[in-house]
């Protein structure tokens, strides 16, 4: 497995010439407005044999650096591993489950080792999508990936599945063969605070009321001056969801959109009525620790093999909180994986991964999710 990375900057263009011209795959992550058909055609010309797989971001990861308004391309030539790309439109959130099922059905099952998934980040119910995918994938095949982003704007998200960018769709990359080794890890680093609140009115991933009061009002009260930056500022207070009496098994949910007209908030995944929600807040040290922890989980999953590539999908909320210190979490990952592992990835609106190497795959929010790859 050979890898090379290059970056596209406005005004500058590609910063490095293409050397690995027979690469079979290019992972491409970039600012929403930069991912034009022209740029992608240019990239395809540089790597004529490669499948393009990627999407829009709320920040690109290249090595130990984090960038905005650029495009990062990571070209990979696998020695033995075969690839298959499939995509599926998702017209609205209600279609999420069916889209997941249809997408998984498009991937040949034989020799399938792992699936990477990227989906547009707005208007999709991540929980339903993952459930649909899992229901149609062969037993034992893991799934990692995320929801593509749009800076802190929450307006337009894109996925690229070896074609022009798509605004409402999901793409899957199947990795085939016996020599590919995959690890994954996923950790948060947010602390719950304040009282448990009962979800009294919701529909799917749309939340209306907590404890019988408008959830949006509650957020505005807590955000104070930051309420003007909704929905992005709501990411500062994600929700920890749990069933009654199961506070230890909490899932984290991040806000994707607010609707003043019906006083609702749309989350990246389900917020079921009857469950309890607790607000969470950032803890700087634990965010950075969480990233290193995710890297340790991913490495642990690879056993003997040394990861050659790590795909980092980290939540936009972490970037909003850590701001200029955001690179500390990527550095934390590099410290665990070592200088030889190539780091690529993006800041997302949601992460898809089993929580631990043995757990079921879920949609997560506010986490750093890492998929490590190597070829024997």
């Amino acid at each position, binding site marked *: 497995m050979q890898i090379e990375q290059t970056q596209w900057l406005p005004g500058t263009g590609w910063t490095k010439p293409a050397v690995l011209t027979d690469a079979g795959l290019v992972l491409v992550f970039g600012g929403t407005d930069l991912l034009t058909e022209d740029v992608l055609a240019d990239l395809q010309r540089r790597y004529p044999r490669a499948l393009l797989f990627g999407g829009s971001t709320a920040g690109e990861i290249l090595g130990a650096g984090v960038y905005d308004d650029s495009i990062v391309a990571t070209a990979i030539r696998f020695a033995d591993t075969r690839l298959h790309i499939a995509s599926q439109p998702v017209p609205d959130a209600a279609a999420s489950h069916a889209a997941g099922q249809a997408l998984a059905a498009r991937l040949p099952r034989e020799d399938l080792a792992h699936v990477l998934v990227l989906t547009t980040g707005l208007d999709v119910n991540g929980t339903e999508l993952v459930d649909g995918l899992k229901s149609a994938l062969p037993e034992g095949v893991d799934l990692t990936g995320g929801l593509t982003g749009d800076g802190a704007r929450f307006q337009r998200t894109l996925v690229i599945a070896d074609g022009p960018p798509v605004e409402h769709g999901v793409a899957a990359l199947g990795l085939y063969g016996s020599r590919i080794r995959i690890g994954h890890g996923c950790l948060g680093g947010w602390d719950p*605070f*304040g*009282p448990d609140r009962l979800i009294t009115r919701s529909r799917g991933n749309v939340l209306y009321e907590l404890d019988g009061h408008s959830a949006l009002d509650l957020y505005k009260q*807590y*955000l*104070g001056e930051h309420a003007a930056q909704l929905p992005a500022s709501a990411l500062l207070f994600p929700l920890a969801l749990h069933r009654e009496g199961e506070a230890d098994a909490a899932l984290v949910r991040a806000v994707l959109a607010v609707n003043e007209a019906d006083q609702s908030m749309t989350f990246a995944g389900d917020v079921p009525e009857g469950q309890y929600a607790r607000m969470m807040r950032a803890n700087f040290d634990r965010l950075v620790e969480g990233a290193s922890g995710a890297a340790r989980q991913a490495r642990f999953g690879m056993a003997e093999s040394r990861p050659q590539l790590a795909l980092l999908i980290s939540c936009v909320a972490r970037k909003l909180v850590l*701001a*200029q210190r955001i690179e500390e979490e990527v550095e934390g990952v590099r410290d665990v994986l070592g200088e030889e592992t190539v780091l690529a990835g993006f800041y997302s609106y949601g992460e898809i991964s089993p929580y631990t190497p043995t757990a079921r795959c879920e949609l997560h929010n506010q986490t750093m999710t890492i998929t490590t790859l190597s070829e024997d």
Partner: protein
Amino acid sequence: MHPLLERQIRRHLGDATAIPEAMHALFQAIGEAYEHADADRRLVEHALDQMSRELTERNRELQRQLVEKQRTEAEQAALIKRLEEAHNQLLQSEKMASIGQLAAGVAHEINNPIGYVNSNLASLRDYVRQMLAVLDAYERAEPLLPDGGEREDVLAAKRAAELDYLKADVVALLDESSDGIARVRRIVQDLKDFSHADRGEWVLADLHKGLDSTLNVVNNEIKYKARVEKLYGDLPMVRCLPSQLNQVFMNLLVNAAHAIDKQGVITVRTGVEGDDVWVEVADTGCGIPEALLTRIFDPFFTTKPVGKGTGLGLSISYGIVHKHGGHIEVKSEPGRGTVFRVNLPLHSSVDEDADHE
């Protein structure tokens, strides 16, 4: 630029213009980091403030719920107590009803034989009087008998029979028997009065009659302990449930007798005061300690040994008097005695129908 950074630059470099061109971006980033940290701190402080306000509010709500819960619990307890009282009264009135029935039945059965014993006694007295008159005539003829022989026999028989004594005693015996029968008749009448065939009927009644028959019924309990003094005033007829009031009087009289250790006096007074009639039962017994005065009307409160008292008497009395629109007062001096006073309104506004169910 962030004010702190500005001050720091002034202090350490003298003037912002002294910053070399190449370092502008650096200072810009430092300033932004300051601002971000400030915004962050404000957010945390604000959220903390919000949370403490919210928790205080929830705390208050919980306290309010607690008070509310305690209030409904107190209400429930009161309700349960009222139910218990109603239940006890029901038990007691059932008990009294069956005692009344039994008494009325016995009285009825006894009445018959008493009737003919009584009339037989009257005839017997008449016969005896006539037979004695005949005997007198014979005695007057006695000297006409010749001496010896038959005359001796008659005199011997008269001596043997103590005829003079017999003549005097047979009349006395008959008088006593008549007295006895009269007493039995009175007791039977009292039993009937006490149990009252009225059961549950509101009638105009003479309380003195009720008191007298009750005194007769409980005479046995009282007579070895106390002398009863009756100081009756002038009472009008009172609209009441006589058999139930008799129960009240009986309980007060029995309590009074129980309170007397060896020998004492029970005084029954009656009178009218304003629109009320009152009946007082006073005793020279042991009295009631102040601390217990509030409890004696509680159902099942008793200081008497098991079998002697159930502790229901006063609670039922209270209920009955209350039903008549009246009330019971008690005054007691431990060691000297106790006075219970039953006050009943003459023109009660009681809903009499309530008792017909």
